[in-house]
């Protein structure tokens, strides 16, 4: 062999399996199965770096496209969506000492080469180069099929013979049957049966040079990031699948290596040399430092200018804020909403429909992190932000089983004889229903949870009692003290500790859509992609509890006896609200509730009308009521891939008083968390708010951002060809990898800008607060989220930059520019 192929001893010890897998896990997509879709930053592995550096690295290593194409920025500029002043400002800020003129040519005219060498995959490309074999096309179909059958959560009628030993263990057991083998040749089979399949040993056969092992594994796994990410997620979140499966990234790699050995054996017999013998030099480490090109700099300038053009207008709006004297003595009601942008627009319409009401925003789990079990013996859903670990379980008892078994996708239709019956009877019936849905959409499929008429008769185990033993390490229900604490914390965080109206609504949100595998992405992000109605209902129940009220009184939050809390669920797709437990309202409150309900209905109509403006297929001249009807029928239409536009265009999060933002329409781009700096001089509450709201909002924002810029790799592509795999994820066609991220239909209208977090407080306190935890600080210090502070009193804007605050003066615009 060629002398240059021998590696030094140092190189030979380079491979550390644990470290490689750990690192791999960092960069693989971290997306849970479809049922609990949680928004997260797809580049979480790069979050330790500054935003721009992270993007450059991610694109050079993994080939992602993380900015818009240069041409698109240029056309945004010519259409006025990027302002000259923002552009100039960004250039001077990023490149002090240069003049704007120096950049003009680069920004506006110069053409750049957009394709470049991507590091991932370069080692394994040698299979094609030297061996003339397309290894992926030989191994992927079998690998995906076996993996998805093992992990399947309920598509197949015959279950995989799962062995408690885990993935490899199950496969080994099956391979032992001796009649049929997973492999074509003998070698891979006997490796599986007779050895422990150490990755190292398998790699020795395939690659043969330890210096290349680590990169080989990266190349191999990033050829199907969807499945690898899923395996890694399941490994890290044991117990979260409905049908438990034991799999690890390691086992996935082991099996894939076996398949590769088998494919090579069947192609070349045993006479093939490991890949390392053909690769002359060790390729550059994929994680070696990357070089920032001029194009990267130009794109970063454009991106920042795009962002600041919008932020600038947003901040100008805030500077025009008029201190409305919103303190009415007799408020009609107070409503607590999720901080979600979609709830935000409803709040605005509600305030318009009923000027004497007051609204608040807070993360939609309403300070009640818990697991929820809808039916006895059923699975748990997590009703809390993704990063939290709830310790309580709420169970629903006595709920009617409303679920009809499906008429259209009956499992029997796979069978020979039942299928024979079904196709000649149900087949015609199905066609009839289909024709009906096309002309008069109405739901005839089982829809996801939130739309089902929530059963008011059911009972939730909210209060812990001796009768409830802990289940799976979770306490069933809350004690009175815990309840009081939950209620107090939430009310303090939004500064609602006095002046209670007679009715306080707690409104979670969820979404109902049919024919939509990504339905969970439409639900509440603060409830891990579940509808937040349960939390609202639980919170209202707690706050109505007599003993809790007594404790709260002692803690200085006196809730008058006449005040009652009402839980509710806002269906963001249909724009309908369901109120819970209204039968327990007092007579007077009942009347007031009837009155308030009218305001809610008017607000919902207006909100639907506002949303309808974005749907091309809806006539903009419709009355709010008609528009609402159209929006509703859209939600049950089988052929509507955009039942709602979700968080598209989200851009700003305000942590402060509602009065700040009340005067303007924000076009559904705003997350709002109620907060009063005056009642929180030390910033303790602010820390809680930011710790909960930042990951949720930034997760949503960055997932939309990168799904928009790189819909091929970080997004899920068009929804239309999606095929549901094992109820875990979607793929294109039968042999594709799982697609992570958001489909085009959700992101196409999104303006990819980072989140601007606006906090109303003194800068020194904010510094202190975000310095408290490294994870929180990372978001702002590395600029994955922009931060601007509004200083109380002076009302000056201060921008967080390089660990300090600098003053920011928004440009002046005429009023009509601000209000669209």
């Amino acid at each position: 062999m060629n002398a240059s192929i021998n590696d030094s001893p140092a190189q030979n010890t380079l491979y550390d399996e644990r470290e490689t897998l750990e690192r791999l896990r960092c960069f693989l997509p971290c997306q849970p199965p479809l049922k609990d879709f949680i928004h997260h930053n797809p580049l979480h592995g790069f979050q330790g770096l500054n935003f721009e550096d992270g993007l450059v690295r991610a694109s050079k290593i993994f080939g992602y496209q993380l900015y818009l194409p240069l041409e698109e920025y240029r056309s945004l500029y010519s259409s006025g969506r990027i302002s000259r002043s923002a552009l100039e400002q960004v250039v001077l800020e990023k490149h002090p000492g240069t003049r704007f003129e120096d950049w003009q040519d680069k920004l506006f005219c110069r053409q750049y080469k957009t394709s470049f060498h991507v590091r991932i995959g370069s080692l394994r490309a040698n299979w094609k180069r030297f061996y003339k074999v397309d290894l992926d096309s030989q191994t992927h179909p079998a690998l995906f099929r076996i993996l998805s059958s093992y992990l399947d959560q309920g598509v197949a009628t015959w279950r995989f013979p799962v062995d408690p030993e885990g993935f490899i263990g199950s496969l080994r057991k099956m391979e032992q049957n001796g009649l049929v083998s997973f492999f074509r040749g003998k070698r891979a089979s006997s490796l599986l049966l007779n050895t422990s399949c150490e990755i190292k040993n398998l790699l020795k056969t395939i690659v043969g040079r330890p210096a290349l092992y680590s990169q080989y594994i990266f190349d191999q796994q990033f050829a199907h990031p969807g499945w690898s990410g899923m395996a890694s997620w399941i490994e890290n979140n044991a117990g979260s699948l409905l049908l438990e499966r034991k799999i690890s990234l390691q086992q996935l790699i082991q099996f894939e290596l076996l398949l590769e050995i088998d494919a090579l054996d069947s192609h070349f017999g045993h006479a093939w040399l490991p890949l390392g013998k053909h690769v002359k030099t060790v390729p550059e480490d994929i994680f070696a430092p990357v070089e920032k090109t001029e194009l990267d700099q130009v794109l970063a300038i454009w991106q920042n200018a795009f962002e600041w053009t919008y932020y600038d207008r947003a901040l100008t709006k805030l500077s025009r804020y008029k201190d409305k004297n919103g303190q009415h003595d007799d408020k009609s009601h107070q409503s607590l909403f999720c901080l979600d942008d979609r709830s935000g627009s409803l709040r605005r319409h509600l305030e318009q429909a009923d000027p004497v009401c007051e609204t608040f925003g807070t993360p939609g789990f309403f300070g009640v992190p818990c697991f929820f079990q809808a039916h006895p013996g059923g699975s748990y859903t997590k009703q809390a932000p993704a990063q939290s670990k709830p310790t309580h379980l709420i169970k629903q008892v006595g709920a009617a089983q409303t679920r009809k078994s499906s008429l259209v996708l009956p499992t029997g239709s796979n069978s020979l004889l039942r299928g024979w019956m079904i196709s000649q009877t149900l087949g015609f019936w199905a066609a009839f229903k289909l024709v009906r849905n096309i002309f008069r959409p109405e739901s005839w499929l089982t829809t996801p949870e939130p739309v089902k008429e929530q059963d008011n008769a059911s009972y939730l185990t909210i209060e812990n009692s001796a009768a409830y033993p802990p289940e799976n390490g979770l306490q069933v229900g809350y004690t009175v003290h815990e309840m009081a604490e939950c209620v107090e914390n939430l009310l303090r965080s939004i500064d609602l500790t006095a002046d209670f109206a007679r009715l306080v609504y707690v409104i979670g949100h969820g979404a109902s859509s049919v024919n939509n595998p990504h339905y969970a992405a439409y639900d509440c992000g603060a409830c891990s992609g579940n509808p937040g109605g349960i939390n609202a209902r639980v919170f209202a129940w707690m706050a109505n509890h007599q003993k809790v009220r007594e404790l709260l009184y002692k803690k200085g939050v006196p809730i008058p006896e006449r005040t009652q809390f009402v839980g509710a669920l806002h269906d963001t797709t249909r724009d309908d609200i369901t109120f819970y437990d209204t039968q327990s309202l007092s007579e007077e409150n009942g009347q007031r509730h009837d009155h308030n309900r009218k305001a809610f209905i008017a607000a919902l109509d207006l909100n639907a009308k506002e949303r309808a403006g974005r749907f091309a297929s809806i006539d903009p001249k419709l009355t709010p009521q008609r528009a609402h009807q159209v929006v509703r029928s859209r939600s049950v239409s089988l052929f509507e891939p955009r039942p709602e536009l979700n968080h598209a265009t989200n851009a700003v999060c305000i942590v402060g008083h509602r009065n700040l933002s009340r005067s303007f329409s924000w076009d559904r781009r705003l997350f709002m968390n109620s907060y009063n700096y005056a009642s929180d001089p030390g910033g303790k509450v602010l820390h809680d708010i930011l710790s909960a709201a930042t990951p949720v909002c930034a997760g949503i924002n960055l997932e939309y951002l990168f799904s928009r810029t790189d819909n091929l790799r970080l997004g899920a592509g068009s929804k239309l060809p999606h095929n549901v795999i094992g109820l875990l994820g979607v793929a294109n066609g039968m042999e594709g990898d799982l697609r992570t991220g958001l489909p085009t239909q959700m992101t196409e209208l999104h303006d990819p800008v980072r989140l601007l977090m606006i906090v109303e407080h003194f800068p020194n306190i904010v510094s202190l607060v975000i310095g408290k935890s490294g994870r929180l600080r990372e978001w702002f210090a590395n600029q994955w989220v922009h931060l601007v502070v509004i200083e109380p009193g002076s009302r000056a804007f201060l921008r967080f930059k390089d660990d300090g605050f600098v003053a920011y003066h928004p440009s002046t615009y005429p009023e009509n520019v601000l209000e669209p």
Partner: protein
Amino acid sequence: MTYFITLLLLIPLIGFLTILMSPAQNELMISRLVFTTMALHLFTSLAFTAFRILTGGQPLASDSIVIFSSGSFEYAMDFLVDKITLVFLLTGSVLTFVVTTYSRQYLHREEGYKRFFYTILLFYSGYNISIFSGNFETLFIGWEILGMTSFLLISFYRDRYLPVKNAVKVFSVYRLADVSILLAVWANHHLWGTYITFEKISDYQLVDRQLQTHNLIGIVVSVMIVLAAAAKSAQLPFSSWLPRAMEGPTPSTAIFYGALSAHIGVFLLLRTWPFWQHQAGIRMLIGAIGLSTGIVATGIARVQSSVKSQIAYASISQIGLIFVEIAAGLENLALLHCAGNAFLRATQLLVSPSIVSQRIGEYPRTQKSSSSLDRWIPQRLWTALYMLNLKEWGLDFFMYRYLWSPLKRLGAALGFLTTQRVTLFFVPAYLAGAFLCFNGHYIPLGLRQWLPTAFSFLGLIMAIKSFSERKNVWLSWILIITNHFWVALAVSFNESVPANQLLLYLSGVIFSGATGYWCLSLLRRYERHIGLGQFHGHIRRHERIGIVFFLSCLGLSGFPITPTFIGEDLVFSHIHQNQAFFAVFVSLGCIVNGISLIRIYARIFLGPGMHSQYELTYRSS
């Protein structure tokens, strides 16, 4: 009456042409055109059916429309309407109407909105031609259109790897079915010695008389029909193409592979039933294929963890049963079953995204396998059966091993054929052949009868080399053209073929070949890479060249847009009954040629392309 048929055939065709002409950005206009076309068609179909029922519904055949005739050869279009036609017409019309209406909104803002609808309408035109066809030649026209539009819809997402790869795969199976029909036409020609329609073969006396004297050739015809039906309806051993065809948008998948396309094999069997009903062996063959497919496919369906492939295999297993019903002579049941299955599967596919919200709530569920079978079978056998199903009984591997690999290996053995050598060999050899052809007296008598076969074999070699060529697109293209020339030469040896017939055959070849060549040269001017080693995706930048090139590919493969289409038929008509090898070589050449052409088109114009650098690392998207 014929007026009705003409109307039903023309409506989708006119719809196709108007959409083709309308601007791609105007979604509303396209959407309205589609809706009008399909509503009109549905209405006419309903009226037609009602009319047929009221007037007693006797089978009705139109007069032959002779398109080309030369000597004893006659090429004509014929139409036939009976119960079978009506069932397929209604099913197709309702489903296409529903699916296009569904897609008008579903595809909103999708790139290729226009492309989607005109392909669907073209497909539907082909479907109508097939179901109304009154002879094999007409059926073949529709059949070819179905195959081509299938290719276009599977590769609807033409800049992605898997759709394009699978489209080529499916096309090759379809091509096999096409050529089976072509061979059936050839055999028929010798069986009857005259022009024949479906109407005539329903005359039992006539068929019986012919089969008595030509038993063997009767079997050949029937086997070819069964082969074509099995391939198109995804029966064993071809089943694995159907789930892999599900790469396009869900509605197109639903209508093609859930419903109409997959059932067209059933139509072929029902249509030719009078012909083979007295051949017990053939009926047993159909029954056996159907039954084994039914059993195998239902097993595979049960272990599928992806919803679309599950529906695909479930559908295949029902089609298997339909085959059994047809073999048993239960025509009415088969028709009912066929329509029901088409409706059911199309609907299931359309609502398949709902499965997550439906099934996820069906808990609590235990881990037990929901089959009663595993209680009766020993664990070891059960596991083996499960694994066998998981591996799809090796069906996909089977196709790879027995369809692709031999061709590739054979092609590799022909590696010595370079452009230069091909020219050096081809020109003198062909000239010599042509010389001998006109001066027959130089040929030793014993050799003469073998020459056509030998030349057709040379043609086949050219086609195979063209298919397996991995780099040089020019070589591949020229080889395809030479294949046709060899075939023409071979036929001329057989008997004195009138020059006008040869010209008819070669005119399309020369024209399409030259156009394609010109497209490639034009493309070469803009793009550095146009080899066959990988997908290039040039359609993104050079849409027009791509379209013209695609049309030349079609022309060269004998698609009914050039006279070559009729010429192909003509060529076959000159192959004698005792020249089975000759027929086999020519038809194999035809298959390989078609696949090779589509492959060239796919490699150069489709796929992830040169402009995205990620082909290797991210092909699963």
